[in-house]
């Protein structure tokens, strides 16, 4: 058995699971967080993408004990409420990205991670960051447009914030979690 202690969307989690259990199934079955999806079980499709300390990982093939002391963010942790969406989610709505929607949690998590490191990605940057996420409905052209749009929205939000206006900081989720050190949790 493996004892787990990590934060999930800012909330401390402590539980015991079978050794080797992938993080995906801990999220979906033990913690009933079903926004993160099962697609292939081999890290090939990206539907299970979550953030560990702000970086995207494929949770279907990531043993949960490896996230001990880390901060995990899932699709449920991106926005405080439906009225206060992350710029990437907002852009996804504006561009009518989702079709069946099953892969979109993973797509969005990959896009958020891309934009956190690259505020103005080129098409080539997007291709390389998003190539690990399969969409069977073929929403790729819209994802590309939505990432460019999210970069604009995010830029607008940051410039508003620097002008002293109280505004949602899209990087807050990731940044706040990054401040939690391994030592504090374990």
């Amino acid at each position, binding site marked *: *058995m493996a004892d787990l202690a990590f934060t999930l969307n800012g909330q401390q989690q402590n539980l015991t699971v*079978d050794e*080797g*259990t*992938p993080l995906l*199934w801990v999220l*979906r*079955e*033990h913690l*009933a967080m*079903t*926004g*993160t*999806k*099962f*697609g*292939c*079980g*081999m890290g*090939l*499709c990206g*539907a299970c993408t979550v953030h560990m300390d702000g970086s995207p990982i494929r949770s279907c093939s990531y043993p949960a004990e490896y996230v001990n002391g880390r901060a995990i963010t*899932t*699709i*449920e942790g*991106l*926005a405080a409420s*439906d009225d206060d*969406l992350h710029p990437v*989610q907002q852009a*996804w*709505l504006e561009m*009518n*990205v*989702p*079709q*069946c*929607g*099953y*892969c*979109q*949690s993973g797509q*969005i998590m990959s896009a958020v991670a891309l934009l956190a490191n690259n505020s103005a990605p080129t098409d080539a940057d*997007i*291709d390389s960051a*998003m*190539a*690990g*996420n*399969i*969409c*069977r*409905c*073929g*929403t*790729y*052209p*819209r*994802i*590309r447009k939505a990432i460019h749009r999210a970069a604009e929205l995010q830029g607008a939000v940051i410039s508003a914030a620097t002008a002293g206006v109280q505004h949602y900081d899209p990087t807050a989720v990731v940044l706040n979690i990054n401040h939690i050190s391994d030592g504090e949790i374990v």
Partner: protein
Amino acid sequence: MGISRRAFLKSSAVVGGGLAIGFNLSGCAKAQYPHYSAADLQPNAFLQVTPSGEVILQLHKSEMGQGVYTGMATMAAEELNMAPALITVQQAEFHPDFRDPEFYVMITGGSSSIKLNYVVVREAAATVAALLKAAAAQHLSLPESALNLKDGKAVHAGGEVGFASLIEIARSLPSPKQVTLKSPQDFQYIGRYNKRLDALAKVTGKATFGLDVQYPNALTAVLLRCPQFGGKVQSFDASLALTKSGVKSVIEVDGAVAVLADTYWQARQAAAAVKLVWGKSPLTGISSDSLRAERHQLLVSEEGNNVEEKGESSAAVGERFEAVYDVPYLAHATMEPMNALAVVTAQGVEVWTGNQSPDIALSEIADATGFKREQIRIHNQMLGGGFGRRIMPDYLVEAARVAQLSGSPVKLVWSREDDMRADFYRPNATVAMAATIANNKVSSLQAKVVAPSILGGFVQYVTNTILPQWLPNGLHKQIGGLAADTDPSASEGLAHSDYEFPYMRTDYVMQKTSIPIGYWRSVGHSQNAFFMESFIDELANRTAQDPIAFRLAHLAKDSRRRKVLELAAAKADWGNPPAGQFQGVAVHESFSTVVAEIVNVSVADGKIKVHKVVCVVECGMAINPDIVTMQMESGIVFGLTAALKGEITVVDGAVQQSNFHDYEMLRMNESPEIEVYRIDTAAAPTGVGEPGVPPLAPALANAVFAATGQRLRQLPLRLA
């Protein structure tokens, strides 16, 4: 009911908006709706208004990405004069009123949802609107002409009153004998509303797919099936598996072995420890190569059934030119693997899942479990992709049987490997295309297609669902088998095309041996458009004509394809691709919708690179214009995936592919620029879920020919 509805739909196809139509859905009100509520205004199966004034639409079609959730709500909203977002959409359980007038069962397929419900759903909403308006007039002591419905309220010069205040009166009124539908020129939402009502839930992770359903104390089950189709377990040893953490039981279920545990991971780990001995499969020794060789032999040895013959065979003069094409089996590979949650008690069965045909599944679960249809409930969820795969009831039946035999609520979860290897595949097929050419003119076009029959396997499910329950057990399926001697889907897109040559003929030879096959997005058109539109290109080349000019010269004068093709040529700047790029074109009609696609490619280092696809679609009136565009984009990527990568191979009766490393999907970095243009007409809407797929493969193959001179007659496309 079924017949009058069919007759109604036929007549309504020519009835323009604004005309009164004599059909009263409230005639079915005696039937107990599964969503019946004694307090609601509920004059038909589709719409109800609660005492609090909430308007609820029963979505009787499955949302699998194609946008029917939004489309249906938009059509209802139009007649109720309310913003689509104000309507609550619930996924409907089975009810006879939800049966499809073409397929006779409650099913989502054939790109037919919008086409067949354009009148039905608007009329259902108009009936509710008429009752609310009459109630408001009574409530306010005003003539009906003095008020209007607007966003869930009755509005008049002196103020407004909410639906909640009108329900009691509306419930007491007789349903109108006939209702008047809005004229298209008065539409506020149809053709204008461009959002998706399901998008917010899908970008926040809140949308519930089958796999997301939670049930108290449900165990997770995985099923071990014989790798060879049709094989059943002979014996198994679960002693080691039963020692694994969380494992509850290992049981035989109808020839397979189920492993039940607290969690998926535990079940999957234990499943690997089960020792299995499989019995002999009827497909032992069969391979995709042997099936292909058999088709080539059948092409010569069998005459087949004549599907269509136009003109006199004596008109087929000149030199004969023949080309043989082949396509492989394809998997659906929905992003959400098959799954279903089932609970079986002495009273009956309940299933939660995403499925395209709950009606068929009810009958199949009834057969498998011994319960009556009336004792079974299916709660449909969002589908993580369908593409035809979820028409089949197999995974619901499996879950119900595991739950029944184990005595526990069970969520059955397929792995990606299960999903890849136990699909109902797009049939493999071979065609001989032939033409005669005299004096540089094509005098005949003939197609002889050899393929297994999807209908042959599927019709038994339909007959099993619509024939009376009292027929002796098994007889349903025998009758179904008898009716399955022909299969229009095998030749659709070859026969009944808009091309005109002096002599035209299509024949079909049924291949009797196959692994399980099913309906795959655009069905027969998925291969037949490739055959037809590639060969048309070959004929253009052999007669030294431009591919578009050749098509226009041979399409019927009144063909809808002409305008679509002409606009595509203009938008793609046909004949002037960027340096180093080459263009290919195809135009095809499927499911009453016409689509042309022009593909720009380059070929370097033996690799095909797709730069851009220009698409023109004519689907009558667009209900939601952006969803039409989305479906074309989707069909193009789906078609491109198949054309460049898709191939399921069989060796010794078993599928060789297992996951996305050996059955690859197109990815972001391979996704071309896509431009979609619509030609809007005043005609009633036709479907868009599938018609974007068929033209892609031939347009791409034709572009590759332009680039390399290589005529690739097999899919996936592989350069020599």
